[in-house]
């Protein structure tokens, strides 16, 4: 596989200026039209937390949130995302590094082993719980149905989804009892 940059030079491809808001920060890049969003994030913006597995939309490792909605970044062209709000796994933790409820759930439930698929799970589950804060085990399975993990056997990931929902509810409970 050639490095990005090499073959563009050979063909003198037109490069497009794009602006993305990634994890709340406006980023600019100059990309050829064929640059996948996954490669733009990793190579142009240096955000290597988004992992690239199958590169044809099957494995889910590259899932990011576009305006809060999970999508496969390997099935999006960076140029087409100009002006969009993107959240990657790097944007999930708090500003002081505090783990998000989903990340904390994965830690507590041993929801990862090698960790390659984890960024895609974390983004997918973060959006899923925002929509359905109290999933049943069945719904938790449905939620992660489009993401492949070859280590865990999924049991601990399902447990992590349920634990993350629990942590989120506790945090909301704490906040409302303080107010």
């Amino acid at each position, binding site marked *: 596989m*050639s490095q990005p940059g090499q073959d563009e030079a050979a063909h003198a491809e037109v490069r497009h200026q794009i602006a993305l808001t990634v994890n709340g920060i406006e980023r600019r890049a100059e990309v050829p*039209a064929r640059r*996948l969003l996954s490669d733009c994030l990793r190579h142009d913006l240096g955000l290597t937390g988004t992992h690239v597995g199958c*590169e*044809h939309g099957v494995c889910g490792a590259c899932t990011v949130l576009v305006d809060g909605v*999970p*999508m496969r970044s390997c099935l999006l*062209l960076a140029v087409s995302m100009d002006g969009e709000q993107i959240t990657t796994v790097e944007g999930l933790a708090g500003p002081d590094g505090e783990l998000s409820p989903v990340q904390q759930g994965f830690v507590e439930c041993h929801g990862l082993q090698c960790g390659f698929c984890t960024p895609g799970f974390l983004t*997918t589950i973060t959006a899923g719980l925002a929509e359905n804060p109290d999933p049943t085990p069945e719904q938790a399975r449905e939620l992660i149905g489009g993401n492949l993990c070859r280590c865990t056997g999924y049991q601990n990931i399902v447990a992590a989804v349920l634990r993350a929902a629990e942590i989120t509810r506790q945090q909301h409970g704490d906040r409302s009892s303080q107010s």
Partner: protein
Amino acid sequence: MKPPAFDYSRPESLDEASGLLAEYGPDAKVLAGGQSLLPLLSMRLIAPARLVDINRLAELAYIRSGPDAVRVGALARHTAVLRDSGAREHQPLLAEALAVIAHPTIRNRGTSVGSLVHADPAAELPAVLCLLGGSVTVASAAGQRTVPAGEFFTGPLESAVQPGELAIEAAFPALPARAGAAFVEVSRRHGDYAVCGVAVLVQLDADLRISAARAGYLSVSSTPLVVDLTEAIGGRPFDADLSAAAALARQSVDPEPDIHASADYRRQLAGVLTGRALATAARRAADEVARAAGVAA
């Protein structure tokens, strides 16, 4: 696994898109959701000279439902159609079929009209459109034309959309009175392409007897196959033994074998799934009759 180089245009209006497609003709490929196009590009199975990205044509993101049809614009994502209450009310078959298209993450970006134009023989929506006798409206610099579903799918991965044209809307006819529909498919894994799938539509008469029944199949032929099952089960009560329809379904399909299933297994599935879907659709039709009678009374 990187796309080949291509030129790129992102029109801001339908007129601009039509102009670009007229200018570049067969060299241009339309990018909507891209959930099928991007893998084809990345695997280098196709190499269009130019992509015309219609994702800024917000005017085509509509879903309009009425007693005649559910009309879906070219930029309506599967998820939006799936969640649309009007679409669900007027043609519930749509939501049932959409729910088994790939995974939610794919449905969040993929478009329903794009799925029709892609014309994959294993896709759900082409079979639904053909079963319902819907249509697709295509626009070009020369004007618009509406293509009936039966003429829209011309071969595997081939539709009637010509160079210079853009499919702008699909019309899924609404569920008629005293009717029920159902969608059933079997895939190797949840979210995979179906080994065989069927959408059925059953209409009852005033005595809850089947007046018409037909089925649309996916993954058993190169284009969606619609079979009229009325001759096998017409006149029977909605809750009667409908196995004659399953036998007719098995006779009517002529599937190809591939690595996922033999032809015989696909034929067997066509029969079994037809029976299941018919039973569900007939019961829904009877429920609908009861509901309508309740409203009238």
